[in-house]
């Protein structure tokens, strides 16, 4: 394809990214059957010669870079290829970006989580881009008989003496065999042309016209649909199935026992198979299953009662510096407070599902996974086939937030496809996902501390009482060993002379738990930043000054907070009836802080404005970092004052968006987000903005109303009344 026509084809329709769903295959004005006969697939074949595992250049000039990290909204489909393109010296707008298959032998780790994609791939991809550029320059130098030093590059061309130039396409044939020296020259940061420029994301065009393919959109010939009935209660087996009514529904072909793979809490489930999703769903609704061993008395109310009483336990020491016990005992006016955060559901907007085609010793899936490598391993184990016989196609993920780190629906689809010998599309209802979890762990945090005569923190203890995700999933020991991640990010914060952190394990088996956007930082930071605020108030200090003082030794965080202070007009007098709050946190190596302004309305408060500063090193795509901060704010506010997951007698009470409510457009305050400029190595932006949202808001509520919120979620329209 000519470069120009390629550009035209990818311009606004997004057609270049995918083999789309062609309407011509639909029988207009005829009687269309069920459309299962179309081979809609993701085009992930790169054209041209490979200069490395991520980069192909076609002699026609078309440059293809593989996006090897699953795209779930975080923007890696664009930002990851952008890093390679920068060092290769091509404008990412003029190239083809393709979604890679799950193939860690070829691409290395493909998992997306812990805000790690840009952080981990920054140097490898720069090196790959730079080495390819070296190969192309050397090929040109050889052609012209000049030294490589006398060549330069510009957007897909090598330039020689007196302006002669050859395109990368012209050179690729020769370049592919050129040796790469051990040390490759990288661009200086000041030479970057595309990084840091807020480029438009290349996946967005296809996301405004319905052409982007998500997991739910994948189809293959002969595919059938499965709707699943899970055992309520996260454990148990099928005792008996009455499918008489189910089988009366036209289109239903099978009722099959299957599993809900969830590591140590794998349970049984039943699938209704039909030739349309609607028939499968109706069939599942008509199915009567009785279960065995699924009853237990887990309730979130009891869990929180137990966790509160566990704050009195000594717990396990995590970290200590100075002498907490001695320092704490010195003071006559110690401060203590306990904070509570709920269990939550991830609820990505695309429901759980997968399309799987298992044939003999081969399997192919179209899977919305955050962890393609892990997924392949789990599939190989379950199907007892070789990993090299497994193909993992990764369409766009309709949100994830950690929910797609594990592979329940994918393995379920594989199990069903193997059992019935056809490609199977599994699609859970919203209710099946919301009710069955896994959830973000709830927590109770108990903090104690003292102030010195000068009003500085002299001692502080942060005790975390929470279940362990590692225990919930894999049965890892958390009663004699502190699960490190459960303490994040408490050690990367303030300098406090006599500090210690402790962990108390809470067993909630069989309730399944999972990493949720920003993981334990989302719960621990609420407690920590609230307590710091309480101490600031007790010390009669401005909460901003108080924090800046604590961050004196940490230049980057100090600078960030000072910038935010200025941008948010923190020191200006507040309008009548307004309050303000601040909170900061460090999460997955990035820092974010918010200032929240609120005003009084009736019995509650209204959020007027949120100012945010984010430091994640070099901004690969600044506009996307801002977008991620916006997402963190919305998700953080939702977690602060919408619904908790409530479980009674082993059954989840929330089921869909009417009782697990989301923030909506009418609740969004004015946002002002600022990305710090520096030349530090970039780290990810998907999570750091979330943890400080809730405490910045509740600190503002205290500032305005004197009402100290220590339990999430709360009701925004009632917090104005104390008592």
């Amino acid at each position: 394809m000519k470069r120009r026509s390629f550009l035209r084809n990818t311009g606004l329709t997004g057609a270049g990214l995918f083999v789309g769903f062609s309407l011509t295959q639909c029988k207009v004005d005829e009687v269309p059957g069920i459309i299962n006969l179309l081979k809609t697939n993701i085009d992930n074949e790169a054209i041209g010669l490979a200069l490395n595992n991520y980069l192909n250049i076609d002699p026609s000039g078309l440059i293809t870079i593989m996006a090897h990290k699953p795209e779930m909204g975080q923007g890696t489909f664009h930002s990851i290829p952008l890093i390679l393109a920068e060092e290769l010296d091509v404008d990412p707008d003029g190239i083809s970006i393709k979604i890679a298959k799950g193939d860690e032998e070829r691409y290395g780790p493909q998992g997306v989580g812990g805000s790690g994609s840009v952080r981990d791939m920054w140097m490898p991809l720069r090196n790959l881009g730079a080495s390819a550029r070296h190969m192309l320059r050397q090929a040109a130098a050889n052609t012209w008989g000049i030294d490589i030093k006398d060549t330069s590059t510009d957007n897909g061309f090598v330039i020689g003496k007196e302006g002669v130039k050859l395109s990368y396409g012209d050179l690729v044939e020769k370049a592919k065999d050129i040796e790469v020296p051990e040390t490759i020259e990288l661009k200086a940061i000041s030479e970057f042309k595309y990084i840091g420029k807020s480029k438009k994301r290349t996946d967005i065009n296809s996301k405004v016209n319905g052409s982007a393919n998500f997991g739910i959109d994948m189809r293959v010939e002969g595919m059938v649909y499965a709707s699943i009935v899970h055992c309520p209660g996260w454990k148990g087996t099928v005792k008996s199935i009455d499918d008489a009514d189910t089988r009366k529904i036209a289109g239903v072909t099978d009722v099959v026992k299957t599993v809900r793979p969830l590591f140590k809490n794998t349970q049984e489930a039943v699938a209704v198979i039909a030739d349309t999703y609607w028939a499968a769903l109706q069939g599942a609704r008509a199915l009567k299953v009785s279960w065995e061993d699924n009853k237990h008395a887990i309730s979130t109310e009891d869990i929180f009662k137990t966790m509160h009483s566990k704050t009195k336990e000594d717990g396990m020491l995590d970290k200590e510096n100075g002498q907490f016990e001695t320092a704490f005992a010195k003071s006559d006016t110690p401060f203590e407070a306990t904070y509570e955060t709920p269990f939550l559901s991830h609820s990505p907007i695309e429901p759980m599902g997968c399309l799987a085609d298992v044939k003999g010793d081969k399997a192919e899936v179209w899977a919305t996974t955050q962890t393609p490598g892990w997924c392949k391993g789990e599939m190989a184990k379950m199907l007892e086939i070789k990993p090299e016989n497994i193909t993992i196609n990764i369409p766009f993920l309709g949100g994830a937030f950690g929910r797609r780190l594990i592979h329940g629906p994918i393995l379920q689809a594989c199990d069903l496809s193997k059992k019935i010998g056809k490609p199977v599309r599994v699609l859970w209802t919203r209710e099946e996902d919301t009710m069955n979890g896994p959830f973000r762990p709830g927590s109770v945090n108990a903090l104690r501390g003292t102030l010195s005569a000068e009003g500085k923190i002299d001692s502080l203890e942060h005790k975390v009482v929470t279940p362990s995700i590692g225990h919930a999933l894999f049965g890892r020991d958390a009663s004699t060993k502190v699960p490190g991640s459960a303490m994040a990010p408490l050690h990367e914060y303030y300098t406090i002379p006599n500090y210690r952190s402790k962990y108390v394990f809470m067993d909630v088996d069989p309730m399944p738990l999972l990493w949720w956007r920003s993981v334990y930082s989302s719960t621990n930071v609420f407690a920590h930043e609230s307590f710091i605020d309480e101490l600031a108030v007790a010390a009669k200090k401005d909460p901003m000054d108080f924090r800046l003082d604590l961050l004196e030794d940490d230049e980057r965080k100090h600078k960030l907070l000072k910038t935010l202070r200025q941008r948010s007009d923190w020191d200006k007098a507040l309008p009548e009836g307004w309050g303000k709050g601040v909170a900061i946190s460090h999460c997955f190596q990035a820092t974010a802080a918010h200032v929240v302004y609120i005003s009084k309305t009736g019995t509650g408060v209204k959020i007027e404005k949120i100012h945010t500063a984010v430091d994640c090193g070099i901004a690969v795509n600044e506009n996307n970092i801002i977008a991620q901060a916006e997402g963190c704010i919305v998700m953080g506010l939702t977690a602060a004052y919408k619904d908790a997951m409530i479980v009674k007698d082993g059954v989840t009470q929330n089921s869909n968006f009417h009782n697990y409510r989301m923030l909506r457009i009418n609740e969004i305050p004015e946002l002002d987000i600022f990305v710090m400029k520096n030349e530090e190595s970039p780290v990810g932006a998907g999570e750091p903005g979330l943890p400080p949202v809730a405490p910045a808001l509740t600190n503002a509520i205290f500032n305005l109303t004197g009402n100290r919120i220590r339990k999430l979620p709360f009701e925004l329209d009632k917090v104005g009344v104390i008592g």
Partner: protein
Amino acid sequence: MGQIKLSINGKSYTIDADESMPLLWAVRDFVGLTGSKFGCGIAQCGACTMHMDGEPIRSCSVPLASAKGKKITTIEGIGTEDKLHAVQEAWIEEQVPQCGYCQSGQIMSAVALLKTHASPTDEQIDEAMQGNICRCGTYDRIRKAIKRAAVG
């Protein structure tokens, strides 16, 4: 089962399906237009928003029986091959989508709003867009994009 005639994006289709089947599944699984999404199935999230005789509807909760003889428009039907709808263009300018899954529904709600209110106020935007959830949190950009499309 019955032969149900539907008009979608100006073309007519006859579908052999149960009248109780929601329009969403007929459009996705029979007609093959997959831009409209399933998010909740109970008219709570707006991912499935289409237009029926110009009015925004939640197609997951509209049975085929009610869609018969009506003009249905989906996300695939608002622009043309060569020219996007002004709302879609504004969505690109403001770089609205993150995961993108909710955005077909968001755009369909916004297009319907701008048909009745050429320059909507914030309150009118809130009112019209409240039924569309974006779990990724793109609301601020949605508001800006609607204002941009209204001007442009």
